């Protein structure tokens, strides 16, 4: 299997889907000549031209509205919102229109759009550019929220998203674009709404998605050195939420930590913890814990930013503690 970056995998998925279906087109800010803020669409304007790689002004409401209207009339738009922070400006079109259209019109219409956008923090981008907002959208029935952690998942899930008939928020991560991994050759499509066990283990389940999966894997490595076997479940999708995979893992390990970027209260971890106790209460030996970012807007100063972001060490420490093996010393 060829190794490539997360960025390249996304690029290839877009390119292949554009080659396959002439109705697939891209739109967004700086996605043409500039190549995209994170260079995912680089070169595509040369290959497909400006009609299929539509450069827009800084009009997020317009972008998502355009995509939705085009999708209602037969096209398959894939919009890029430069970062998830800016999606707030276009949220009305996504939440009040796209997510409502199929149901509100009794199945007479559909809105097959994909909105790609990176989430996450970690480059001192401060309060307005470091947010993790995908759980807001996962709250909305009528939408899907997909969030891959690896290049292979990025490719397989983006291709599946483009072919799917529902409005989809496809969440990337600013710190994952250069992440490398193997990607299967040929047509690679993954089912939407299916979690993936990224590492098997016996003692505790670490549940994560997007970049936090890599933190969970690093924590699992560190825990292994202490003789603790951690299983890592990558949700890959916040809605549909594959709670079965999560629950069957917890039934085996009897312990769970949910790990994600962003804020704790009302975040994705709250939902997952609630689902676990609904479905596997008797299997739990300890309350489900959540490890997330601190409940503040992200500060600019490195000393504060570090303190605000979740850390692998925290996961290792809590897991060891939960399992009563924290005396080993971390």
């Amino acid at each position, binding site marked *: 299997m060829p190794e490539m970056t997360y960025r390249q995998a996304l690029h290839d998925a877009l390119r292949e889907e554009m080659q396959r279906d002439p109705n697939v087109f891209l739109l967004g800010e*700086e996605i043409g000549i*500039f190549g995209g803020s994170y260079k995912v669409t680089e070169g595509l304007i040369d290959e497909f031209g400006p009609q299929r790689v539509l450069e827009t002004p800084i009009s997020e409401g*317009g972008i998502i509205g355009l995509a939705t209207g085009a999708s209602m009339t037969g096209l398959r738009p894939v919009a890029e919102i430069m970062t998830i922070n800016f999606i707030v*400006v276009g949220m009305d079109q996504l939440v009040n229109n796209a997510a409502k259209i199929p149901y509100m019109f009794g199945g007479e219409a559909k809105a097959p759009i994909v909105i790609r956008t990176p989430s996450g923090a970690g480059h001192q981008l*401060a*309060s*307005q550019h470091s947010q993790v907002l995908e759980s807001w959208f996962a709250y909305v029935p009528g939408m899907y929220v997909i969030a891959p952690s690896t290049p292979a998942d990025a490719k397989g899930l983006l291709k599946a998203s483009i072919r799917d008939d529902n409005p989809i928020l496809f969440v990337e991560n600013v710190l994952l674009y250069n992440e490398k991994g193997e990607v299967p050759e040929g047509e690679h499509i993954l089912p939407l709404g299916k979690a993936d066990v990224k590492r098997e283990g016996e003692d505790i389940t670490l549940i994560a998605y997007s970049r936090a999966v890599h933190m969970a894997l690093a924590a699992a490595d560190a825990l292994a050195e202490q003789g603790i076997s951690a299983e890592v479940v990558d949700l890959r999708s916040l809605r549909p939420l594959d709670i079965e995979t999560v629950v069957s893992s917890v039934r085996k390990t009897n312990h769970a930590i949910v790990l994600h970027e962003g804020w704790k209260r009302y975040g994705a971890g709250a939902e997952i913890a609630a689902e676990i106790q609904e479905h596997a209460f008797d299997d739990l030996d300890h309350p489900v814990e959540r490890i997330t970012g601190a409940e503040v807007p992200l500060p600019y100063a490195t*000393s*504060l930013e570090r303190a605000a972001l979740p850390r692998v060490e925290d996961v290792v420490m809590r897991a060891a503690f939960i399992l009563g093996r924290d005396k080993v010393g971390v």
Partner: protein
Amino acid sequence: MVKEVERNRLQPHTTQNAPVEFHESRQELHDMLAQMILIRHFEDKVYEMYTRAKIGGYCHMNHGEEATIIGAIRPLRPQDWIISFYREHGHILARGTEPKYVMAELFGREDGVARGRGGSMHLFDASRRFLGGYGIVAGQMPLAIGVGYSTKYRDADEVTLLLTGDGAMANGASHETLNMIGIYHLPVITLIVNNLYGMGTTVERSAANPDLWKRGEMYNMWGTQVDGMDVMQVRRTMEEAMDRARHGQPSLIEAITYRYRGHSVADAARYRTPEEVQAWRGADPIERFYRQLLEAEVVTEQDRQEIERQVDATVQQAVDFADASPQPDPSGLFDYLYVNPPPTLNEPETPDA
């Protein structure tokens, strides 16, 4: 004052040789020049400090835009307000905030204007009525409606300067803002710092009609375009707009200028030609103003040297100060989040931690 500026990118402006009339004091003109040079050198140093990893995050600089900044901000009175966006280092310096506190913010230090919490995009100075730099494009604009309304509500003699970029004028918030300012006849002057690009997108590609100043008419305000490389023209236009604002008429001023460097420190600006950049650098606002002042015998070459020397010293002091200022202590992570929060706000400790 209404000047149509040629939008030929290799021909920066048409007002190069317009006669200049000064009625400011010598001191004032000297200080304007000194502040323009301060902004230039400050930004040079910011770039250097960014490459040395003293500054992080997104960092947008003002090189080339000095005439729009000094021309618009210098005429403001202490009681007037400013609302700006993320490319605002020069804006806060022009308002008189000491460079060392600005540099400390860029370094992410406790002595910064936002105590290291904001960084380059979020500078603030309440004492100078500088109401902040904001990072969401056009997101600062609606705030100006409220500031203007507040002035009217309190029946105060204040003017608000709202700064925005050309790219931001494509965002819905710009329409809501200008329309509401127009409806309520608010004392707000909107200055579009049109540096011809929003990231890599030219204004012709982001605006259906790139003559942004013409929108003034449709919002029932004075709309005008000015050569943003000529500080005195910007100043005169601003003075007229302030006069109108105090009589209940808002303005929309489009200043044509150019940013010499990329969109942010990280942008290599491959979407434009070196010839274009060269052409605009040839119309440099600092050199132009300096020539005007030389010809009018307001300053001498010696004055210029002295200004450069002082500015260099100030900028170096700012760096030294910033470097010596402490990083915010992590224990202060939750400071300033709420005012007087109830005890229930705090997260309970993990029970058995």
